[in-house]
C-alpha cells in the first residue's frame, strides 16, 4: 500500500460520502489506483449504512419517563420571560422582610 493511498484516504472517503469528485491533488491517483477505488466503493456502502442508521431506534430505559417526570415535581413551568421578574420580586420581598425584622428588634431602653 503506497503512502499516496494513505494520504488520499480521507479525500476518497469524503468523495464517496458527499458524491463529489476526489480533491485535485489526489484525483488522478484515485481514478487509477485499484486500492483507492476499492476504498471508494467500500465508503459508499458505509455512507449508505450510516445514513440508514438514522432510522434505527434503541429503546430508552423503561424508567426514563418516570425519572424525568418525577424530576419535574415542584418545577414550575414558567415562561422564561417571567423567571427574571419573579426572581427580582422574590429578592426584593425577602430584603424588605429582613429590614422589617431588623427594625423591630428589641432595643435597649435609654
Amino acid at each position: 500500500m503506497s503512502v499516496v493511498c494513505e494520504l488520499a484516504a480521507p479525500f476518497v472517503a469524503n468523495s464517496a460520502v458527499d458524491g463529489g469528485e476526489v480533491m485535485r491533488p489526489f484525483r488522478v491517483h484515485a481514478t487509477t489506483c485499484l486500492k483507492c477505488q476499492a476504498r471508494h466503493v467500500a465508503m459508499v456502502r458505509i455512507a449508505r449504512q450510516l445514513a440508514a442508521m438514522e432510522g434505527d431506534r434503541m429503546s430508552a430505559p423503561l424508567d426514563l419517563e418516570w425519572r424525568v417526570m418525577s424530576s419535574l415535581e415542584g418545577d414550575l413551568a414558567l415562561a422564561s420571560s417571567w423567571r427574571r421578574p419573579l426572581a427580582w420580586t422574590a429578592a426584593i420581598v425577602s430584603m424588605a422582610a429582613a429590614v422589617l425584622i431588623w427594625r423591630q428588634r428589641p432595643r435597649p431602653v435609654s
Partner: protein
Amino acid sequence: MSNPPDPSQVEGERESELVARAQKGDRAAFAALVRAHQDEVYTLARRLVGDPHLASDVAQETLIRAWRALPKFRGDSKLSTWLYRVTVNTAWTHKKRAARHRASPIDDHTEIAAAPYDAGAPEFAGEILELRGRLRRSLDRLPAAQREVVVLKDIYGWSHAEIADSMGITVTAAKVRLHRARARLVKDLEASA
C-alpha cells in the same frame, strides 16, 4: 368524497397541540411528548457518549432541559430536531463534566453493538446486518470528538456549520475532525474485515 388525512400530518397536528399544552405547564401533555421522543433522544445520546448509563443520564437531563426551555420553542423546526440540539448540548456538558472528573466512561464502552435495535426493518439481513454491526463497533472505537462529528454529519445529516455551532468549534475544525474520523473509520473497517 374527501381523501383521508395524511397520518403524519395528523400526528404533527397532535404533536403541536401537545407542545402548546406543555408550554402552558400541562405535565400530562409533556409526558406524552416524552413517551413519543424518548427513544430518539436516548439513541442519539447513546451514539454520542457510548456508555449506556451515561446516555441514560444525558437523555434524562435533555428531557428536563427541554421542559424548562419549552416556552422558548417557537415551532420553527420539528420538535425532534430541536430535541436533537438539546441532546447534543447536554451530551457536550456531560462530556466536559466527565473530563473534569477524569474517570470518563465515554471511551470505554463495548455494549453499543448489542443494543436492541429495531430488527423489523427489511434491511436487517445477512451481509448488511454484519456490516452494520462492524460499523457500530468501529464508530464506537473512534475518539469521542471524532465520533460525535461522524454521528451528526453522516447519520443525522447536519451541516458542518450546525455541528460547529453545537460543539463550540470552528467550521474548519469540524471539517478536519470529520476528515480524520472518516479515514480512521475506513481503516478500522478494513482491519476488521
